């Protein structure tokens, strides 16, 4: 079937079987190899992309389900200014803090963490994210990532919200540090280089 989607902000169309995994469509049909396959079972989060603004495992999405929807991959996180690529705050901090080693889980973590920064670190169910409950356009919620959170609460929130991204290398500590550092950047209003992909 012909699947038409908004991919990293641009219209894209691809002719694929409806049962093909979104992960395979991205990597094999659209040559976007930033998204990695870890387990293929929805356990590891390596293949995380945003589907209509929400983080999902692309190995568990059927291509047909993407028709008419928006997909953001790790390739869509950076912004461009005067021909120069500017990494998302999360990407820069993962580099700066050493929050990556072998790199297989990193794109999924970057996508998930970027999403969390855009809608704030409110833990699920604590009321901070109720506006997102329609499941669409979650990124439009302009919550400050660290608003009203102590350091310990923010750390716990990052750990819970990244619990679906398994890493075998880092022990997570530096990943959490990187996401918190990126959250501080956004909270400090250093948005020039951190804004969401436009």
């Amino acid at each position, binding site marked *: 079937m012909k699947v038409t989607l908004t991919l990293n902000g641009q219209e894209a169309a691809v002719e694929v079987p409806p049962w093909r*995994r979104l992960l395979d469509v991205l990597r094999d049909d659209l040559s976007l190899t930033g998204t990695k396959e870890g387990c*293929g079972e929805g356990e590891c989060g390596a293949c995380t992309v945003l589907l*209509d603004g929400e983080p999902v495992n692309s190995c*568990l999405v059927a291509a*047909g*389900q993407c028709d008419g929807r928006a997909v953001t991959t790790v390739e869509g996180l950076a912004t461009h200014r005067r021909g120069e690529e500017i990494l998302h705050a999360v990407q820069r901090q993962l580099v700066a803090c050493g929050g990556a080693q072998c790199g297989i889980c990193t794109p999924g973590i970057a996508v998930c963490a970027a999403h969390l920064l855009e809608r704030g670190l409110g833990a*699920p169910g604590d009321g901070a994210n109720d506006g997102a*409950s329609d*499941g669409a356009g979650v990124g439009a919620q302009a919550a400050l990532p660290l608003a009203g959170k102590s350091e310990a609460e923010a750390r716990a929130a990052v750990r819970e919200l990244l619990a*679906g991204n398994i890493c075998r290398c880092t022990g997570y500590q530096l990943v959490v540090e990187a996401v918190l550092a990126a959250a501080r950047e956004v909270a400090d209003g250093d948005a020039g280089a951190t804004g969401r992909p436009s």
Partner: protein
Amino acid sequence: MTAYLRPRSLAEAVAARAAEPGYLVLAGGTDLMVNANHRPAPAGLIDLWRLPGAGEISLDAERGQLAIGAGATWLQVQRHPLVVRHAAILAAAAREIGALQIQARGTIGGNVANSSPVGDSLPVLLALEAELELCSVRGTRRLPYREFCTGYRTTALGADELVSAVLVPVAAPAVRLFWRKVGTRRAQSISKVMAAAAIHLEDGVVRRATVAFGAVADRPVRLAGVEAAVVGLAPAQAAEAARAAVAGAIAPISDVRSTSDYRLQVAENLAARMFSELS
């Protein structure tokens, strides 16, 4: 080539189901899409993901029930103020399913229809005495959730039916709710044992309790023996009576995730804790 149908309404969905009962009904795909690239493609898909209106959550004040649309995702369930207020253990269970990526896609209707013995919401639905709304071109019927699971991954769902809503009675203020999931780690683990209960405590004694477990049988189960053993007892005595009644009520198996002995021990501990935590 796999056929692909995306209904735009519940009426279209049941019509598609009636016309093509052999097609795979797909919502969030968190179970059905696992290893999809290594499995034969289905003849067709009926895609219910984001079916308009199917994820709505509302309060039916007349019946005293929360109506949760089958298409509601675990994120929607755990965040919805009505669920948090009236069925807190369902919100808690939703928050422990997989992690964010799974919660954004998995739906309550999928969990029910798929009917895995380790489906995390299912003991909660038993303990809360939920009903299901089942739809087909023939009409709509209601079925107590307790009568839905007929065996290992078999259900009372007709070949032309879809689960359209889960109806949860609003818990009375005097009813205390309990939920605990035991797995290998906090996130992304498939349960070894789950326990849910709704306990009506009055004048310091248990008047009535509904007690349900998951992952200890071929389907999620209510433990009538435990429920009978605790009536009329104060929490501390109820805890010991519940613990003692578990072994006669379940015979869990050993599998890749746990052993029979471990499951029984944990189930006994959880049965006791449901009541000991009341005091």
